[in-house]
């Protein structure tokens, strides 16, 4: 392998580095946009945005959109769409309420059953999309209506409240405070933060080593280092902020596990690869032996389960099952995915991109609410941000001579 590692010295390292960065403009742009928005609101709200309590709230209050965005980005990469997730969130919340308060099902069993309902919902929609070949837009538009209707039937147009504390912890609980509530920084959170940082660094080093070994590495070392340092600082900063308030929200752990697991699935599993292949060129995927129908079906089952999880988190957080819950969540999730760099035509997108897109929307919501911007302007601004992000993408593609 040793002969592979000797790459010819670049005639001009600066030009090469610049060209590399230009190629990565979309990813960098997304990060920069996030940072600029955070700094803007930090200044505009005179320091409220990055107060520990607000950061904690930001995570908790956006968690269900971020969870939905993970499922949605997979659906969109495959070239489909899911408009029904908002209604599924409401339906699962309603069923959780009915099970726990009326049928007296234990809270943990209710969670399992609700995830099962999500899988059934996904199988229903996946069947029509994958095997009956009805466009996902139509099937999930129908789902948006039917599941909203089922929610109202299940709740008989009333709200259900309250939920047991154990169930509520899923939405608004924190990990136990090992410092006994007296320490300045909550020790468990600090531990988790440091562990996460170490894992990120280890993973980064390992991956670069492997890529170097096979001579496919074209990322300049300085940029690689900057990225690693930046990510580490970011994690430690969030850790610091959370540790100086109530500690780690339980939902952040859920979200973290989902992000890691689904990032791995999308980048390293056969299933994930098939999703990209279907979205990139359906014909070529089918002629390469990809079972396109089965993959599409499973994709929607997965989306159903994720929507159910988001529904549980949302219901637990509000401590309320409400017939109107989840209204418009599908649009926030879809917007997050597209801001995060996914292509409307499928085949392109990442889980991390969708999460950053979701955070951008979340911080915009949060910051504008603190500033007292009316909801009419919030909508207007979010709409323009979505358009700008996608316009930037399209422009970028055209500049690079894409089709």
């Amino acid at each position, binding site marked *: 392998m040793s002969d*592979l590692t000797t790459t010819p010295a670049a005639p001009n390292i600066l030009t090469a580095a610049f060209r590399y960065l230009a190629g990565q403009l979309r990813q960098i742009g997304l990060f920069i946009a996030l940072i600029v928005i955070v700094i803007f609101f930090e200044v505009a709200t005179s320091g409220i945005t990055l107060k520990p309590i607000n950061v904690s709230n930001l995570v908790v209050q956006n968690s269900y959109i971020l969870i939905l965005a993970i499922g949605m980005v997979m659906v969109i990469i495959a070239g489909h769409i899911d408009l029904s997730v908002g209604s599924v969130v409401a339906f699962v919340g309603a069923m959780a309420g009915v099970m726990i308060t009326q049928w007296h099902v234990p809270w943990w069993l209710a969670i399992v059953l609700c995830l099962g309902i999500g899988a059934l919902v996904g199988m229903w929609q996946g069947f029509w999309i994958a095997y009956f070949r009805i466009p996902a837009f139509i099937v999930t538009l129908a789902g948006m209506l039917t599941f909203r209707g089922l929610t109202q039937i299940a709740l008989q147009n009333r709200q259900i409240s309250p939920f047991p504390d154990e169930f509520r912890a899923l939405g608004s609980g924190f990990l136990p405070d090992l410092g006994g509530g007296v320490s300045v920084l909550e020790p468990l959170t600090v531990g988790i933060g440091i562990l996460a940082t170490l894992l990120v660094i280890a993973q980064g080093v390992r991956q670069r080593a*492997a*890529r170097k*070994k*096979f*001579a*496919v590495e*074209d990322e300049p070392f300085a940029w690689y280092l900057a990225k690693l340092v930046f990510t580490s600082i970011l994690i430690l900063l969030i850790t610091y902020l959370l540790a100086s308030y109530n500690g780690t929200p339980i939902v952040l752990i859920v979200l973290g596990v989902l992000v890691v697991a689904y990032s791995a699935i999308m980048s*390293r*599993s*056969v*299933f994930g*690869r*098939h999703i*990209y*292949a279907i979205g*990139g*060129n359906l*014909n*070529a*995927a*089918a*002629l*390469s*032996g*990809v*079972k396109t129908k089965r993959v599409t079906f499973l994709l929607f089952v997965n989306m159903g389960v994720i929507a159910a999880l988001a529904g549980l988190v949302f219901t637990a957080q509000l401590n309320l099952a409400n017939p109107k819950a989840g209204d418009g969540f599908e649009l926030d999730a879809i917007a997050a995915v597209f801001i995060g760099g996914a*292509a409307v035509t499928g*085949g*392109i997108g990442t889980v991390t991109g969708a999460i950053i897109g979701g955070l951008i929307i979340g911080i915009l919501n949060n910051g504008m609410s603190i500033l007292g911007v009316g909801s009419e302007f919030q909508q207007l601004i979010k709409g323009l941000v979505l358009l700008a992000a996608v316009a930037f993408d399209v422009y970028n593609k055209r500049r690079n*001579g*894409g*089709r």
Partner: protein
Amino acid sequence: MRNITKTFPGVKALQDVSIGVQRGHIHAICGENGAGKSTLMKVLSGVYPHGSYDGDIVFENKTVAFKDINDSEAAGIVIIHQELALSPYLSIAENIFLGNEQQTGGWIDWNKTNLEAGKLLARVGLKDNPITKIRDIGVGKQQLVEIAKALSKEVKLLILDEPTAALNDEDSAHLLDLITHLKGQGITSIIISHKLNEIKAIADEVTIIRDGKTIETLDMHADAVTEERIIKLMVGRDLESRYPAHTPKIGEELLRIENWTVHHPLDHSRAVVKEANLFVRAGEIVGIAGLMGAGRTELAMSVFGESYGYNISGTVYKNGQKINTRTVAAAIANGIAYATEDRKVYGLNLIDDIKRNISGAALGLLSRRGWIDENKEIMVAEGYRKSMNIKAPNVEAITGKLSGGNQQKVVLSKWMYSNPDVLILDEPTRGIDVGAKYEIYGIINALADEGKGVIVISSELPELLGICDRIYALSEGRITADLSREDATAERVMQLMTQEREKDHE
């Protein structure tokens, strides 16, 4: 048309082509696939605007410079493409007047539309009601509607690009009658056709084009014109050293296809492949020669996981055992690979990189319990990049940005990695330059030397003659001959490819 030269980036499609068409005559244009016939007609009809080619077009004694199709149609030149340009959900009348709506005060006058359409339909001998939807009439009638549409534009010169390629015998005969009939009304026609008997039946002159050059124009009324003479002019070039030398080491029979019949997926009554029988042996390169529409790709795709067609019947044997090829996954598992004719539409994920395209058909070899070993993937792809000489900085280059030849090497790598016993290569050298072609031929030879069976489908007859050990000729869905390398001459294969059913004497 005088001295027409048209170049595409890197290719000279037409070179000093001159052609003279007499008013009121039917002029046929003949040539192999890719000789430049369609390009020439696109120049004439303004698809390629004035200025994008060199040379002059003289129409009715005036030099003309068409900016687009509308321009040429205004002058009375109408082209009917091989793929019909009709909107299936609109009526016959609406299609005839599409873009030329019969209006009264800005509103469509439906009575006038349907009345005028009826008159035009009568002229082309079609008795259907003008309000019938296009999708409800057959391809033959659709062709007539196209001609009616041309008549509505007061056509003086009608260009037909392979008008009978998709028609059955009866519809073809009717269409040819109509063209002759229109000639009586003073309408000049240029007809591009592969079917030599049709040309003999109706054409007044025939011009032969080869490699983007006019070879000769023959007067069909002179006695000496025979099909053999036309064929000779069409193929007439020698096999230069464009093909690497290869001594085959042919072994046992690997794959046999018996009584293979495939029906058209939309027109279930039409068989596109009819009772085909063929086999390939280990180490053998077998060619399938056929004109466009003969059923070559349809045959291959239907064998490869029933990816094409309806009501497919027949049996596939490998090493004498009957095998299942009903799904693509089953075909791959049984050691069959199929590299598609159109790599951009069916072969590659153009927005993804080289390594993921190469691994795409054989992820099972790279993964354990559903997780891909990405390091191994890079190593495998890197191996093919070197051995196949794929010109790219590394295996993470996006395939959409590679040249045609390099894209084709990625496709071949992908199928080689799936480790098949039989490879079906559909137009493996289409749209790639001469140097890359030579490399691809070398790869095909190497595959055969490894003991694999290779089936090559190609429109380029010289290519098949240059690399194949045996050639099947396919005409209208039927295999008309199985020729050994020694027996296969360009003239003979071309004759078998163009052989019509009624003359089927073998």
